[in-house]
């Protein structure tokens, strides 16, 4: 019984690290490089990208379509931290101090509220559909129809009911974000391994305990991937809503990109677009590590 060495050793680094096999190594150049290479490569990579951009834009020579990287960076700086906008020309020039920051905040608010609503409503719907055949039979036609429908097609009807204010933006975010949450949650409940449920039953779990202690933890990583999908879908929803609602002032990042492009302000268009890209990147990477933390037994990841 003590002879556990006949077993294969654990693949886990932590348990192997507990064995006295580790020794200190010298900080050779190679070891330092191995640690630092990814940030360094990324930095070089992005620098080359910026240089190519600068060079390409100079040759193309149409700042309305493609500004130089430095012009874009200038607009980025003014739009985020201010200092230098030509305030004498306010009515015609969108590029005001803090304009990106302001619109970013507008977008984040609508997006955040819509997402939280999608998550809070979507998870229970998915759980109920997964857990009850009746609920599944009743709800699934609607869920599958709506999730397949290009939801932007609902916009004209939604305008009639909700107008062109914030309500329609919330509606579009929810309509784009809620279905991945519902469907992933449902799939998690549905695919819970029968042998895990059988094990819980053998050890005396009631129906409720099976749901709490087996189905819910099994479903959790599915919910996380659903949320991950919802994050990117919802961002599409909010940007499209902002394109279409056309506020007179500060209608969000989508609005800003749309208006700036229409006004041939290439620098601001691209600066706002970069801000959106950074937001999306941060969100996706953030949830990716969240998934790995919540469910380390699952292989990451699908996007």
């Amino acid at each position, binding site marked *: *019984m003590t002879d556990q060495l*006949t*077993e294969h050793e654990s*693949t886990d680094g932590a348990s192997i690290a507990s064995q006295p096999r580790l020794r200190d190594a010298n900080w050779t150049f190679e070891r330092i490089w191995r640690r630092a290479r990814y940030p360094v490569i990324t930095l070089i990579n992005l620098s080359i990208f910026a240089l190519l951009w600068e060079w390409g834009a100079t040759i193309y020579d149409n700042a309305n379509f493609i500004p130089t990287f430095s012009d874009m960076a200038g607009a980025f700086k003014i739009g985020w931290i201010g200092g230098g906008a030509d305030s004498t020309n306010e009515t015609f020039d969108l590029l005001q101090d803090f304009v990106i920051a302001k619109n970013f905040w507008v977008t984040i608010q609508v997006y955040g509220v819509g997402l939280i609503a999608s998550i809070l409503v979507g998870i229970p719907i998915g759980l109920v559909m997964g857990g009850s055949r009746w609920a599944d039979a009743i709800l699934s036609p609607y869920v599958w129809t709506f999730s397949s429908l290009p939801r932007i097609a609902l916009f004209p009807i939604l305008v009639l009911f909700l107008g062109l204010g914030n309500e329609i933006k919330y509606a579009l975010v929810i309509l784009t974000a809620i279905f991945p949450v519902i469907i992933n949650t449902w799939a998690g409940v549905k695919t819970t391994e029968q042998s895990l449920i059988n*094990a819980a039953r053998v*050890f*005396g779990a009631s129906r409720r305990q099976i749901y709490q*202690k087996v189905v819910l933890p099994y479903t959790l990583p599915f919910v996380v991937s659903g949320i991950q999908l919802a994050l990117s879908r919802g961002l599409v929803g909010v940007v499209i809503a902002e394109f279409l609602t056309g506020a007179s002032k500060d209608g969000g990042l989508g609005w800003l990109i749309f208006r700036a492009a229409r006004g041939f302000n290439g620098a601001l268009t691209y600066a706002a677009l970069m801000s959106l890209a950074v937001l999306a990147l941060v969100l996706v990477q953030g949830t990716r590590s969240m998934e790995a933390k919540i469910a380390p037994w699952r292989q990451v990841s699908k996007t």
Partner: protein
Amino acid sequence: MSTQPTVNSSRGDPLVVAENMTVGYELERERKLLTALTDINLTVHEGEFLVLVGPSGCGKTTFINAVAGLLQPWEGTITYDGQPIKGTSQDRSMVFQDYAVMPWRTVEQNVKMPFEFRDTGLSASQIEDQVKSMIGNVGLQGFENSFPHELSGGMRQRVGIARAMVTQPRLLLADEPFGALDAMTREVLQAQLETLVMDAGQTVVFITHSIDEAISLGDRVAVISHRPGTVREIIDVDIERPRLAEGEITRHPEYGALREHLWGLVKDEALGAKGAVV
């Protein structure tokens, strides 16, 4: 090697009795009922190690699920200690083919699981002690806080065994527990299971499709025919224990004859199954 289910002197009272039991399960996707076992008559005696062998798909798992209380017989009866089996019980525990350990729980939390669902009357510290010593018994000390995905298949099944035995059930059900393991790990675990069961004095119903495993572990080996399954023959294995802890059971004078006889039976069934179903 008798072909009649004779009661030998060391064998205890009947613990599980299946009489003319027919049982199956629902194929959910096709909305069909599938008969897995027909007219089964089989008795498990207190203290014995009963092995069921048969071709895959012959209903061995269905039998063990019925004993566990996960399935109800369609016809006939199945009793435990004289009472019809209506549901699962603390007395009957199970080791699963695919381990069925909860991936989000550590080794310790997995082994402790049976205590969460049933009141064993033990205090929290008694439970701690029992869990700890059981983890030691299966050779997992030092891995209490590891997660299953950090462990090898053999170690995961050790968790499954510990979880099944930690409440000291009277009857241990094992559904092809070593089927997915490599040959070396399997032999190690077979020997350890034999020791654990001998120490605890448990009754065991063990499923395998390996004839060698059946002879190595079983006091009796029941050959189940192909679907719908029924008991084809029951064979006594009168080889003294411990069989696996030391020495080589395959060198035992009776081993070869037993193996040949069993293989003859199982081969018929396997071929029959092929012709019947594929």
